[in-house]
């Protein structure tokens, strides 16, 4: 291995930082989580009748697990277009605070909107956690390249895993397809529970699990959307009441 290039060669330093990010991602726990999750997504897309190219492109373009699962589930079962767009939008709102929290740490001085479009596209829970943890320890000029290295590696792993899940679901016994698909609700449930630090989020998770089936059973129109709004608002109200009593 050659020594790290010195920082007076900007291009060399940037590519070294990119490779450091790629190495970080490839050895993190998230590469396993991403692979397993997207094998499940690939199997799901296969069973809803989408093509492998569509499934891979959705991983590249959306790079947001819940939004992709909502898209496939709802498109496949003929939900109205407006409900679908709003449900996808709501499920990805969490990206906004993540971008807002990370950008001040990694953006170069005097950066323009278009320079940040690609780096922020990589932001998902996994990339965000690693970038927030490690980027502050690097020289500011290297941070974006480092984040890009993490992002490209994980989004690449996710896209390949999508294809793998798609073909495995088509080729292997029915039980494999069922098991691969079951990864999605399992990993969503435990990772949402793990990220729920506030009572507000725990309550919203529990309420959504109960209200969702009730609305679906009574065939409420826009049931996913109402599950989010009703469950989330009750949880928020509980949080406000507790805050007022404290």
């Amino acid at each position, binding site marked *: 291995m050659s020594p790290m290039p010195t920082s007076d060669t900007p291009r060399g330093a940037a590519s070294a930082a990119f490779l450091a990010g790629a190495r970080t991602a490839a050895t993190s726990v998230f590469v396993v989580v991403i692979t397993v999750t997207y094998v499940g997504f690939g199997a799901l897309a296969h069973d809803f009748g989408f093509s492998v190219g569509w499934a891979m492109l*959705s991983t590249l373009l959306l790079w947001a697990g819940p939004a992709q699962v909502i*898209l496939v589930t709802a498109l496949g079962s003929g939900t109205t277009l407006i409900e679908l767009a709003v449900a996808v939008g709501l499920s990805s709102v*969490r990206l906004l605070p993540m971008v*807002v929290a990370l950008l001040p740490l990694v953006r170069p001085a005097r950066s323009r909107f278009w320079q940040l*479009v690609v780096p922020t596209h990589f932001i998902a829970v996994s990339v965000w956690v690693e970038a927030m943890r490690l980027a502050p320890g690097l020289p500011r000029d290297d941070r974006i390249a480092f984040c890009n290295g993490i992002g490209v590696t994980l989004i690449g792993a996710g896209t390949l895993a999508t294809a793998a899940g798609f073909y495995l679901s088509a080729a292997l016994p029915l039980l494999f397809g*069922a098991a691969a698909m*079951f990864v999605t609700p399992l990993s969503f449930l435990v990772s949402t529970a793990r990220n729920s630090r506030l009572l507000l989020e725990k309550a919203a998770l529990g309420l959504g699990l109960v209200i969702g089936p009730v609305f679906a059973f009574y065939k409420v129109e826009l049931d*996913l959307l109402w*599950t989010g709004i009703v469950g989330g*608002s009750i949880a928020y109200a509980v949080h406000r009441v507790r805050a007022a009593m404290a």
Partner: protein
Amino acid sequence: MTNFILEPYLALLLLGFLPSEMWRWLGIVVGGGLDEGSEIILWVRAVATALVAGVIARIVLIPPGALASVPLTVRLAAIACGFLAFLAIRRSAFAGVLVGEAVLVAGALAFG
């Protein structure tokens, strides 16, 4: 997909990419002007969490394709065991997924 009027790739762009990606763009525009603990962000987080919970419940109770071949009781037992394993084993997501999958496969083989 028979009752769907948009071409799948157009749907991917308009109903998937745009509604999701706009939050990343908005994040660049908003920059440091938004407090992560602000009331509106808290409400939005609660709504998004409940919505994801609704998606979880829907996949377990009204599953697509291959998963529908596994009996409902096995699916419910598997998701419950996965969650309990997650709580019991140091809140490890990996342990939760592993145990849930093991229960699903064992249950499907025994009762499927």
